[in-house]
């Protein structure tokens, strides 16, 4: 459709069509608003500032993992091993502290390198062996889970109550009065925002994800971007794992798995919010907060936990459906 016909069409559109257009464009935001309104009315205490802060703080780790996932989805792939990178980050950091008595910041670095290791394996499989990201990261997931169980002799947690205060503060401390979890997640959010949305690397990454062949012909070193994408995403998820371990002062094997579906959902909800259906850092943030809001709201409503799980699942299907539908119909017009 050319510009001209579009202009004509919209100028002659009836009020009803305009309403439909409005719904298509902002439908999802309306849903968020409606859900928010619903919880404000029916979930006790939902609107209290401490609860809202709770939602934000409780979403920090998921946000960090979802950022890594955003990166990979922006590149046109998917990462089923974010949870493994999370676990490795936690395990490496806790073991470095407990068994090797490392200073906390070195332990953090060791933890991050655990995630980088997971990312490296993915990168190798995807770039060198041309395995599809889904299959590669599924394989990494199997192997990573197994390694954790071997290492912990079956999956026992590694607890380190004596972790240094600085390390604990990564999760429970405050920086300038703000919970450090939120600060770290915000810093990463900002870095990712600048990197994926504002930098020339981000532009190239999106170009690869949209049309790999065109990116290749435009002289972008696609393989290098894929490689570093997986590595950096692995490192990012490990930061999530480190915070998680600092929170509880322990490493619980396979804990990262529980973030996988939420991370995928958050990224795709976010992607459906953008005009062209692309994953974006801001969209992911909205997706994460939306999921956090639903989990928290349903918790506060005091529903039976089985009902709650079912509702969360059904809401996920409906929301994804509406989001994808909205994005597809926007794309068509």
């Amino acid at each position, binding site marked *: 459709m050319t510009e001209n016909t579009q202009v004509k069409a919209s100028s002659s559109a009836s009020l009803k069509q305009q309403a439909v257009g409005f719904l298509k464009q902002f439908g999802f935001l309306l849903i968020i608003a409606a859900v928010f309104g619903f919880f404000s009315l029916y979930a006790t205490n939902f609107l209290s500032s401490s609860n809202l802060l709770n939602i934000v703080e409780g979403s920090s780790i998921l946000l960090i993992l979802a950022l890594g996932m955003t990166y990979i989805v922006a590149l046109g792939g998917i990462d089923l091993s974010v949870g493994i990178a999370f676990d490795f980050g936690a395990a490496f950091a806790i073991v470095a502290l407990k068994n090797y008595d490392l200073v906390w910041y070195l332990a953090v670095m060791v933890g991050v390198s655990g995630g980088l290791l997971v990312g490296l394996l993915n990168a190798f499989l995807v770039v060198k062996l041309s395995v599809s990201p889904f299959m590669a990261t599924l*394989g990494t997931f*199997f192997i990573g889970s197994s390694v954790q169980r071997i290492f912990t002799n079956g999956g026992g947690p590694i607890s380190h109550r004596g972790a240094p205060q600085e390390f604990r503060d990564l999760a429970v401390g405050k920086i300038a009065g703000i919970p450090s979890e939120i600060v770290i997640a915000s810093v990463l959010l900002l870095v990712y925002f600048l990197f994926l949305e504002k930098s020339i690397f981000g532009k190239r990454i999106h170009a690869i994800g949209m049309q790999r062949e065109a990116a290749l012909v435009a002289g972008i070193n696609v393989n290098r971007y894929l490689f570093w994408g997986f590595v950096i995403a692995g490192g990012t998820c490990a930061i999530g794992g480190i915070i998680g371990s600092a929170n509880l002062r322990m490493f619980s094997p396979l804990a990262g798995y529980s973030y996988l579906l939420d991370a*995928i959902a958050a990224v795709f909800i976010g992607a459906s919010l953008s005009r062209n259906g692309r994953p974006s850092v801001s969209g992911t943030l909205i997706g994460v907060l939306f999921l956090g809001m639903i989990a928290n709201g349903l918790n506060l409503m005091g529903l039976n936990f089985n009902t709650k799980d079912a509702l969360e699942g*059904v809401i*996920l299907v409906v929301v994804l459906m509406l989001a994808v539908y909205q994005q597809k119909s926007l794309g068509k017009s």
Partner: protein
Amino acid sequence: MATLNANSQSSAFNWRALTGYLPFIVFILMLGYLAVSAPQLLTTDSLDLILRQSVPTVVVCLGLAVVVIAGGDDVVAGGIDLSIPAAAVLAAAIMADQLTNHGTAFLPALSMAMGAAVIVGLVNAFLVVKVAMTPLLATLATSVATVGITKVVTSSRRINVDHPTIVSLRDNELGGLSVGVLLTLLLVLIFYFAVHRSKWGMSLQAVGGNRDAAELSGISVNRMLAQSFILASVAGGLASVFVLARGSGSSPGSEESLLLEMILATFLGAAFSPRRVVTLWGAVLGAVLVTALSIGFKSIGVNVFWTGCIKGALILLVVASAALATSKD
């Protein structure tokens, strides 16, 4: 670039063909090793055990194979259905609940269970065909929702089932083979007939093989895709009977291991097919062999923590060798 994948006659071709057989060779070697180190594996008891334990996986694999055959085997862009195990477990929960807690007769209970499973399939078909969601995302979401609904049905409790039909499926034998295995064999034959021996099946394969070509041959691609998801959910529903028989009841959470086994077996099966594509036989064989491996490793006392490693490495071996065998340069 967009050049035809012309038949390359170079010497590298044979090597690549060999790469394609690598997973198969590794598999045979592993099984051979197991047979030598645990001779009891070759007894009829063990073989019967392998068949009986692989039954639920085999049935869900039938469903996944249909979806992959119709959608193409690119996991992200092509066909995949992650919700089959969840549908199977939901159906099993409904049937267990009806049989044990409400005293419903077998057939009505089965139809309720099947109905629930097919609804999952319909939702998938709607999301993929009408909303144009990628199958991966759509079925991931329905799978999460289905698991949640299962929890409501069962209140996260195990429900024991001692209904005679289910018990006989588990315990009775006919001509030396368990009734469950025989029924599964029948099911495999029906699916085989539908997918590989009928016009409908050829259309299904054509859609997965080359969507444009199928459309040009007058096949309605969307209808075939929708039908594949519905058929997959039927397989899921049927699998519930075997899930119940195997577990003597329904347990919450059993979908997870079923899911991983299903994906592993189905895509592993592609490595066994002479055409290197996902087929019903391949998926069934894959399911049986994966079970055989699991049992074999346990029998020789390999630490169970290693099984994930072995499975992961197997998946990667299969897909990497397939990717290398088909890569152009």
